[in-house]
Every structure is written in C-alpha cells, then in structure tokens.
C-alpha cells in the first residue's frame, strides 16, 4: 500500500495552522491516488498532540525523543530519515517554514534526492505517478511545474497556499516510532530570541518599504497602526527587506519571500515598490492599499486601492480621518 507522509508543524506547543494545510494537500493526493495519508509528529513529548492529529490522518507516527526538544535540523532530518527507511512513503510533504529551509535539504540529502521547495501547488500525474510541483521562479516573474519521479518525492509547501483540512470522523492509528538519534555535530552555544511577532495572525498590517527612510517615518506608521486599532483587533507594523537590512525594523517583521507570508484583511503598503519578492509574502492579503509617490511603481498593479503622493502628508491626514470614523 502506498503512503503519503505529512510532517506536522508545531508552534508554542500547539499544532501550527500550516499543518492542516499540509494535511489538506496530502488528502487531495490520496483522494486521487488512494494512498494512505500518514502524519509524523516529532519532539520531546510530541505524543501529546497525536490524538488531535489522528482525526486527520490514517496513521500518525510519533517520534518522541529528548534530542528533539529544540529544533536541531540535523537531528530532525535523521529522525525523519529513519522513518522513511522503515516505512516506504511515496511522497513526503513539509511546510516551507524557517526550520524546514534547513531540515528539508538535509532530509533530501540523506535520502539521496532533491527536495522541491516553496511549492504553491502539489498535484499527481496519475499516468506516471510523478509529483507535479508548481513554484514561482525568477522572483515570481515565471511559474514552473517540475516533475518528480524518484521516491520519496519530497516537497515543501508555502504557507497559505491552500486551505485547511476539515477534521474527519474516523480516528486514525497512533504508532510510536522509537529510533536511535545522535546529537547534532553543530552545537548551540547561545540563543537570542528576538521580538516575537505574529504577523501571520494580524488582521491589518501597515508595511513600510524603501520609501520610508527614517525613524521619523516609522513613527508616523506606528501612529497609523494605533489609529487602525480602533477598527481591527490585531494590527501590526511590517517591513520589506531593504528596510529590515537598514536596521529600521527587526527581521521578525519582514514580509516577503525570505520573510513572513501574511493574509490580513487589509495590507497598507507604504513606500513599497512592489517587487515580486515582496508580493510573495503580501499577496495573500484580502485588500491591498498602496501609498507611493511614484505612480509607475509596480505595487499599484498588485493593489486594490492606490494613492499617489508623499506618505508624509497622506498618512497624518488619513489618521485624522480614521479617528473620527465611527
């Protein structure tokens, strides 16, 4: 019997929403091809979440090991490798998350294969059995569909690329998978937690781009965040990559291909040119409002509302209007 494996993502001890998207992608494939949908939970005490995942997958493998207490990519990759060698999976689906940027290639290498990363769609060619992976390339200026034949087919799926799987009404089997793991050759000496921001949970985002050059400008946008808080529950300040590299805002607030992928109700892009790399993170927003002094900026092609003009003048006036709106 063929199997599909989904690696469950966790955050702060809970199952990350992305996991249900991955399970949905796996369920789609298994509806087409009839494979058994399997999930894998890894961690120290990972078993606690197995009951919940069992409502979504037919087999839930649990690799519970103290060496998995914090993400050490080599150890995680070895754990998944051990499972892949014990159980044959046709396809392994992982989230395109920060940690998996490290774990996925390390897993692929251990299996002697390529992984296809940052896919926005995953399908099966029913004739050849190949996995068809759709991903944007050249900064979003082209879209490629790659065929992967060799097993296991390993792919990482971009967050928010598909909806969440509904909870099923049959409970799958929970299978503990003990395996021998070795400490990573890479030793952690110290860990610095930056500011923890959940941009992916915001319902309104004000994002600053290269056009906002100064700390003064950032303060202006913070005032807009404040004013929007009257209308939305969670409003966050974000930035495009150049601004983060200039040190004006922390990297945890970076939206884009190498930052966070967001999907708020409203995304206000201020002084952002709209490069495809940025839109790869912001494109999931329900409504995009662009404020930019350059009427030819590509951001306007990707927006629902556009205001051409200097943000230094537009934002304060907009705030004045927002605070009097009921």
């Amino acid at each position, binding site marked *: 019997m063929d199997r599909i494996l989904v690696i469950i993502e966790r955050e702060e001890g809970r199952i990350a929403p992305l996991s249900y998207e991955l399970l949905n992608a796996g369920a789609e494939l298994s509806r087409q091809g009839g494979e058994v949908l399997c999930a894998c939970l890894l961690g120290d005490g990972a078993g606690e979440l197995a009951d919940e995942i069992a409502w979504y997958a037919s087999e839930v493998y649990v690799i519970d090991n103290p060496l998995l207490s914090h993400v050490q990519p080599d150890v995680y990759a070895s754990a998944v490798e051990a499972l892949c060698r014990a159980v044959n999976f046709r396809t392994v689906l992982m989230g395109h998350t920060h940690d998996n940027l490290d774990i996925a290639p390390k897993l692929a290498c*251990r299996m002697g294969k390529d992984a296809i990363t940052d896919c926005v769609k995953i399908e099966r060619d029913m004739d050849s059995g190949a996995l068809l992976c759709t991903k944007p*390339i*050249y900064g979003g200026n082209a*879209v490629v569909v790659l065929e992967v034949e060799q097993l296991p087919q390993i792919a990482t799926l971009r967050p928010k690329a598909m909806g969440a799987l509904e909870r099923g009404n049959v409970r799958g089997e929970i299978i503990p998978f003990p395996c021998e793991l070795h400490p990573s050759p*890479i*030793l952690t000496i110290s860990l610095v937690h930056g*500011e923890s921001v959940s941009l992916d949970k915001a319902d309104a985002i004000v994002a600053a781009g290269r056009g906002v050059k100064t700390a003064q400008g950032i303060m202006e946008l913070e005032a807009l965040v404040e004013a929007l808080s009257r209308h939305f529950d969670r409003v966050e300040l974000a930035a495009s990559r150049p601004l983060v590299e200039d040190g004006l805002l922390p990297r945890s607030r970076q939206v884009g291909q190498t930052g966070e992928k967001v999907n708020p109700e409203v995304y206000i892009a201020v002084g952002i040119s709209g490069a495809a790399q940025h839109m790869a993170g912001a494109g999931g927003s329900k409504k995009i409002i662009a404020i930019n002094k350059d009427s030819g900026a590509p951001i*306007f092609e990707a927006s629902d509302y556009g205001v051409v003009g200097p943000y230094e003048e537009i934002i304060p006036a907009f705030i004045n*209007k927002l605070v009097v709106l009921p």
Partner: protein
Amino acid sequence: MKPPTIIVCIKDIPDPEGPRSAYEIRSDEKRVVPIGIPPVINPYDENALELTMRLKDRWGGRVIALNMCEKAVLPVLKKALSVGADELILLEDQAFRNLTSYATAWVLSAAIRKIGDYDLVVTGRQAADWDAGQVGLLLAGILELPGINLVQSAEIEGGTIIAERLTRTGHETVMAPLPALITVSSEVGDLRLATIKAIQDAKKKSVTKWGAADLSLDFALLRSRVIRSLTPPPPPSRHCHFIEGKTSEEKAENLAARLRRDKVI
C-alpha cells in the same frame, strides 16, 4: 593557527532587480530569457563572498571561488578575484546544463574533493533565480561536513567555526568542527567594492577550467530538472482603484471615505 583555505561557491544570474518585462518567458522552450538586463553574481553569493573576505582579512589564507555552469560568464565572475579571491575555478561543461540541485551539489563536491585541502566552504543561502535554497546543504551532506544554514556572521577559532545563524525571530550562536560548510544570508551585508588596483591585480590571478572529464563523476548522477511547463505568472487578479484629490489631505479623506463605503474599514 594555520591560515585557512576557504572555498566560496558563486554563480551568475540575470539581475533579480530587473523589471518584469526583462524576463521573456519562452514556454515552448521551457526557459526564461533575460532581455536587456546584465548577468550579476547572485546577491546571496555576494554576501557569501563578503563574509569570506572578512575571514580572510582576519586570518589571511587562500580563497578559491568556484563556479559551475554550462558556459561561464567570466567578466561577471571575475569580480570575485577583484574583491580578494586568490583563484577562480570554473566547472564548465555542456553536461552541466539544467541540473537538479542534487546533481549540482554532486559536481561541486567532486571539484572540492579534487581541490583537496580546505577548511571551510561558503555558499549563498539560495540563488535568486530558482530560489531552491538547497545546493549548499546538499553539498555539505555529500562532503559529510557539518552544514550551518542562514549564517549572518562567522568567526574561525582554532579548529572550529563559530557562527550566528538566523532563527525565525532571533539568532542562535552555534559551533562546529572544521572543515564545515555555511550558507550565508543577506544579513551579512553588501559585498565590498573593489579598488582600481585590485581590479588590475585580478588580471594576474589564476583562472582554472575543469570539464566533466576532469572530475571523477558518475555521469548517472548528472540528473536534469524535469520541467513539465514554464509559463508567465497569472495576470494580476486585482484592479487598482486610484484615489484622486487635489491635495494629499483630500486624497487621504477620499481614501478613508472609499474604504468605509466598500466596508474595508
């Protein structure tokens, strides 16, 4: 400490800052043809070069820049020599066209084994054309080196590398024995500029070419990417409604009014 030998892997790509119109999509040939934009060293590879040069500033030693492709773009790649690399090795062969990430890593690993003596391999975190972000760590795996991903700074001390690697919100300081491989992120900062003298001196530096036959390669491993289709991105699904007004204030007011009318706010 003995001055280290560092191998830095670089490749050229069409300038990723180019406008959309600069990328001609030839769906029938399943390829992208850049029009009117020059090739540049992949920006993340430039970050890798910069970090490598900082290590060389501190420790001296030898830096070898390594490139693999079907046909090398020498004027672009020579930039590595003019910022301080001592040697450029080009792996150039028809057989290296359109390789998978794994096959690419395999060819690079064969060249690195041929170079033989080295302490550190440095790559960019990903190439800004296909954005797979895999070759570095695959290369580490094939060479059986510790592979540290997304490094923003690194220091060599004794026989170890101490690196700061990015975590999702902060960073982690890690240590691994040398030889090791690191992939470098943009947080390292921009590549230094070359001086005129350095550009002159670069002309005297050695450029070596190796083809597939010069490397101990199992040709069965030279797998190509299987492309089912390559198409332009879907047309923008949004239509921009421009907010008009005589002054910035009027535009701002009209924006608020319009958003309210459309129940956005």
